[in-house]
């Protein structure tokens, strides 16, 4: 095996991204969809850190971006869960198939 570097990390982040995407597309439960989104966000964070370390170590921008992403992800998760719980109250279900009412 070769010495792990930027390409290996990028491979992991890409794989994780599309695992998240796959989950988002196939899961029917809103909470599991939310989990998939967390995976996607994390893969992006990995990217930021990896580029910061391997390409532009002279700055800390990537690090800051991932901090902001984490902050926003936390806010997003909180809001999403609030919505999910509200939905559960009104529909007695958090299946995404039952949440079609929004289209009206």
């Amino acid at each position, binding site marked *: 095996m070769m010495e792990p570097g930027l390409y290996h990390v990028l491979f992991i982040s890409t794989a994780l991204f599309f695992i998240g*995407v796959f989950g*988002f*597309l*196939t899961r029917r439960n809103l909470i599991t*969809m939310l989990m998939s989104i967390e995976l996607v966000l994390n893969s992006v964070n990995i990217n930021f850190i990896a580029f910061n370390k391997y390409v532009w170590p002279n700055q800390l921008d990537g690090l800051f971006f991932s901090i902001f992403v984490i902050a926003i992800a936390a806010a997003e998760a909180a809001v999403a869960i609030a919505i999910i719980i509200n939905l559960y109250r009104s529909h007695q279900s958090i299946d*995404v*198939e039952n*949440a*079609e*009412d*929004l*289209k*009206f």
Partner: protein
Amino acid sequence: MNEFLQIQLLGIFSLGMNLGWALVMIPLLPLLGFLLLGLFGKKFLKQSAGIFATLLLAASAFLSLHTAYGYFFKYGKSEGIYQKIVPIQFTWLQFSPGVSIDLGILLDPISVMMLVVVTFISLMVHVYSLAYMKGEERFPTYYSFLGLFTFSMLGLVMSSNIFQLYIFWELVGVSSFLLIGYYYDRPSAVAACKKAFIITRFADLGFLIGILILSFYGGTLDFNTLIEKLTSTDSTEFKTIVSASFMGISALTWALVLVFIGGAGKSALFPLHVWLPDAMEGPTPVSALIHAATMVVAGVFLVARLFPVFSMSEVALMVVSIIGIISALFAALIACTQTDIKRVLAYSTMSQIGFMMFSLGVSGQGGESGLGFTAAMFHLFTHALFKALLFLGAGSVIHFIHSNEMKDMGGLRKHLPITHITFLIACLAISGVPPFAGFFSKEEILLAAYHHNATIYWIALATSGLTSFYMFRLYFSIFWNKEHIAHGEAHGEGGFVMMLPLIVLSVGAAAAGFIPFGEYVSADGKALESVFHLQFSIAPVALGLAGIFTAMWMYKKQNNRPDTIAHSMNSFYKLAYHKFYVDELYLFVTKKILFNLIGKPAAWFDKNVVNGLVNGTGNFTLFISEKAKGFQSGKVQQYAIYFLAGMIGLAVLFIYIWK
């Protein structure tokens, strides 16, 4: 010049109005009547609307008489020639430094004469209508339309440039349309007004093109400048318009013939006459005003106005005289067979206008040869008087009988004594029996024709014989013939208000011939010595009397002579009775040829191609949206898949295809 006029007028008018003010008021008073009655008539004025309009028109008539007096006797003449005076002129639409449309007033003998004729006849009709139209529901509307018509007609005759004339020309057409269709609940009236409008419009197209050609070559729209430029043989404008030719005929001739087509449409000359008999659907006073005395002579007026230019083109004058003589004879033949009294009068009008036209056609510019011009104007003047009288008399008869058909009438001389006398005077006048007005004017026309063209003279002579025949056929059928069992005796003759215009007009019809017309109106403005040849008058008068006696023999007593004669000339009688099938020819041309060859393919094109395109667009959108609706499922994951697919697609596109 203008200052001179004002000083002159100040002397006459202690009120201190100047010429322009008085002149402008002449058309504006009827316009005011139109506006006030049209806006407020129904609510506030009701039956008093008529009196209001009549007073306005009386003021207008007074002003125009005053203008005529001033023009003919005070300031119009300069060095023995009546001048063309433009007291008011302002630029209305300035398109570019060189091109503008002006509004102005042009005074010359014919426009002043027309002012008097129009306001006078209009006033008579206004007065007459007070009684005739009494109790009509749309009485104020009727008077407002009359006001509009009078305004437009006055504007027409006073126009100082050809485009202004065209505007008023169209306004006259509109008001004629409105008045013919006054009884809009009658389908026949609606059809008639549409017919009149469409045919005159069609003719006006020619007029407009003619105007454009004339003004293009003449470089101006102004009458005086235009005439000046196009009549002097060494001006550049004249040279270009004569040398420019289309299909072997010079542009001047084309322009004049096109202008003449417009005039022929308005004046109901053959073959554009078909609207005039139908226009009799309008109220009878309207027929008297518009379709006898004023509007229909607009064509004659137009040719007279441009006469100096017409006289430069032999061909155009030829066309004018040929169309004129054909119309005269043709209409006279038809008039002999019709039974609707208003239609007889309509055809008679057409015939008389034919007289005026060919008289213009045989005239020359100035001097002795200008007799035809003077004669035409003179005949226009006298014809307006006696034809309005005839129509108003017919209106009186119709008012009494409640029918237009000759067979319902007869023996009315006892019931309608005043109408009878005035009608007789008018008939004698139109037949050319001395000393009534028609004798003098017709005599001059025949004289002009005699000097110019023998064929036209003979046809005109025959036509004048026919004229007296059909007029007296009408007269005897109405007032003599069978003894009528009257059913309208209850309301009598219609009272003083209706009789007054008849009496005034009959005085005019009897005496107008003694006006030395040639002194005032002539082609070049110089006084024309009217020569009177006794021996020349023998033939027309004899022929006229023959016509009268024939009519008397056939119609004075009820008998079967008319039927026998009609029978003996069976096919010809039928031909004339059906107006030579001109209407049918028009229908054939429009329905069979225009509709089938042009209308139907156009309709097909419209239905299938134009509509098809429009519908196709709609259907296509519907189809697409029907399909696109499926995408809007509300399922988040489906959206995500589309989004992802789209992103991948775009990525591929940008990375690999559009590098």
